[in-house]
C-alpha cells in the first residue's frame, strides 16, 4: 500500500449534529411473508463511517441495498444529501462482498466502468482510474485480469472502482469478509486512512464486532425479528489513537464486550 500510515493523533472536528449525508426514515421491507425491516430510522453523519452490525438475518444488507436504490422499500423514505432516493444514483457507490468484477475486463476497465457508463471519454476515465489504482496499491496491475489477482487485490479493484466515480457516499457490503485475516487487518487500517482523507460518508455492513469497533465513528446495532435498531454506539476517543494502539485500548475492549453482551442471546 502506498497510502501513508497516520502516526500522529489527528483531531477530527466535531460535525454539527444536523449535517447528515444519508437519512433513513421509517423504512419497512417485506419479502412475501418475511418481514426484513420494520419502521427503521437511522441517520448517517457526513464524513463519518457508520457500521451496520448485527447477527445474520437482521436486515443490514437489505437496508444497504435500499439506500443504494437497488431495492425498493415497502414504506418509508431515504434521503441522500436532502434528496429522496428513487433508484441508484451518482451520489452513491457500492462495494460488493464478492467484488462483482467483470472477469472479461482488465483492472483498468473494471475500475473505469462506472465512468464508462456515464459516458466519460476513454482517455479521461482511464487517467482517473489509473490514479485510484495507484492509490489502492495496485499500480502495475492495470492490464491484469481479475482471475490473475488474489481475493484481497480484487477487493482493492472494487474499492478503486467505487472511489473513481467520486460519489459522496460509499456503501460497503461486508467488503472484507471474503479475504484472509491478515489482508483484512491491512484493509481496516487503509479504510481508516480513507475516512480521514477522502471527504466521504461511509456506510459499512459487517458481522464482525471487532471490525465494527475498529473502523467506525458510529455503530448501529441491528437486531432481528423484526429488524430494528437496538442501540447506537459512538466511540469517543478511538479516532484520536494511533492505529497500532486501538486494539489494546480499554475503550475498544469495553465496547467490544458490551456489544457481544447484547448480541449473544441472538446467536444460535
Amino acid at each position, binding site marked *: 500500500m502506498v497510502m501513508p500510515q497516520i502516526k500522529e493523533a489527528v483531531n477530527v472536528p466535531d460535525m454539527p449534529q444536523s449535517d447528515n449525508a444519508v437519512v433513513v426514515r421509517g423504512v419497512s421491507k417485506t419479502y412475501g411473508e418475511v418481514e426484513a425491516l420494520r419502521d427503521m430510522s437511522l441517520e448517517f453523519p457526513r464524513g463519518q463511517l457508520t457500521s451496520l452490525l448485527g447477527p445474520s438475518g437482521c436486515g443490514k444488507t437489505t437496508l444497504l*441495498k435500499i439506500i*443504494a*436504490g*437497488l431495492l425498493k422499500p415497502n414504506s418509508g423514505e431515504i434521503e441522500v444529501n436532502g434528496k429522496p432516493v428513487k433508484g*441508484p*444514483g*451518482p451520489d*452513491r*457507490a*457500492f462495494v*460488493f*462482498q*464478492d467484488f*462483482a468484477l*467483470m*472477469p*472479461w475486463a482488465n483492472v483498468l476497465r473494471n475500475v473505469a*466502468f*462506472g465512468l*464508462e*457508463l*456515464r459516458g466519460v471519454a476513454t482517455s479521461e476515465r482511464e487517467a482517473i482510474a489509473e490514479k485510484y489504482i495507484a492509490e489502492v496499491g495496485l499500480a502495475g496491475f492495470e492490464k491484469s*485480469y*481479475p*482471475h490473475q489477482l488474489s481475493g484481497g487485490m480484487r477487493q482493492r479493484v472494487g474499492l478503486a*472502482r467505487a472511489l473513481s*466515480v467520486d460519489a459522496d457516499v460509499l456503501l460497503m457490503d461486508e467488503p472484507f469478509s471474503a479475504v484472509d485475516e491478515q489482508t483484512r487487518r491491512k484493509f481496516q487500517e487503509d479504510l481508516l486512512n480513507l475516512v480521514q482523507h477522502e471527504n466521504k460518508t461511509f456506510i459499512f455492513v459487517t458481522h464482525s464486532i471487532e471490525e465494527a469497533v475498529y473502523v467506525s465513528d458510529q455503530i448501529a446495532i441491528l437486531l432481528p425479528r423484526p429488524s430494528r435498531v437496538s442501540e447506537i454506539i459512538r466511540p469517543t476517543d478511538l479516532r484520536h489513537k494511533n492505529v497500532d494502539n486501538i486494539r489494546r485500548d480499554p475503550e475498544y475492549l469495553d465496547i467490544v464486550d458490551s456489544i457481544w453482551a447484547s448480541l449473544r442471546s441472538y446467536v444460535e
Partner: protein
Amino acid sequence: MTLFGYRLPAMSSLLLWALVWEIVGQLDLTFFVPPLSEVLVTLTAVIGTAPFLKALSETAQAFAAGVSAAVLIGIPVGILMGKSRLIDELLLPWVNMFLSAPLTALVPVLMVLFGFGMKSIIITTTLFAIWIIILNARAGVLQINRSLVEMARSYGANPFQAFYKIYFWAALPEILGGVRIGVIRAVKGVIIGQLLISIVGFGALFELYANNFLMAHFWAVLIVLFALAFSVSEVLAYLERRVSYYAASR
C-alpha cells in the same frame, strides 16, 4: 492416448478408419463403398470444376445467411428470456417444442409460405440452428452472478448498457457453445433444404451423384462438406476455450 508404450498422434483413429475403408473398397464388396483412394482422386478432379464451385457458393450463401439470422435473432431472444420471467414463460414451451420437433416435416409448409427459392432454404437453415442458440444464451444468462447485475445497476447502467456490456459478455461461454452446436445443425438444415425445396447447391450434387450411382463423387462431396462443418465448429470451439477462463468466475 498411448498404445504399447507409443504415444499416438491426435486423430490417429482417422488413419485406422481410412485404412479399413480402403480395404473394404478394394475387396469390391458393394458399389456403395468405393476405395478411399478412388474417392480422393475423384475429389481432386471434382473440386475445381464449375458445377462444384457453383454448388459450393450457393450452399455457402444459404448457410451464411441462415446462420447469421439464427445468431442475430437467437442470442438476443435467449438473453431476453434469461432476463425476463414473463418473456421466458411465453416463449420457452415453443423453443423446447421446436428444438425436438422433426423440422424436416415443416419444410413443405415453408415451401408453401415462402416459395421454392433461396428464401425457403435460408429459413430452413435458420430453423435448424436457432433453438439451441436461444436455449444456450438463456442458460448462460440464468447463471450470471446476481451481484454483477446489481453492480451495473448501482453504477448507473441503463437496461441497454446492461444488456450489451454485462449480460452478453457474462453469458458468452454458453452463447458460443450454443452457436457451435447450432452451426452443426445448420449444415443439416441447409442440405435438407437444398434437397427438398429446390435442387441447388450441394443438395443438387448429392441428388445427381446418388441417382447415377456415382458413389466416389458422392463420398467426395460428403468429405468436403464434413471438412467445412468441422472447420467452422473447431474455430468456434477455439473461441469458446478463449473465454472459458472466466466461465468459472462469474
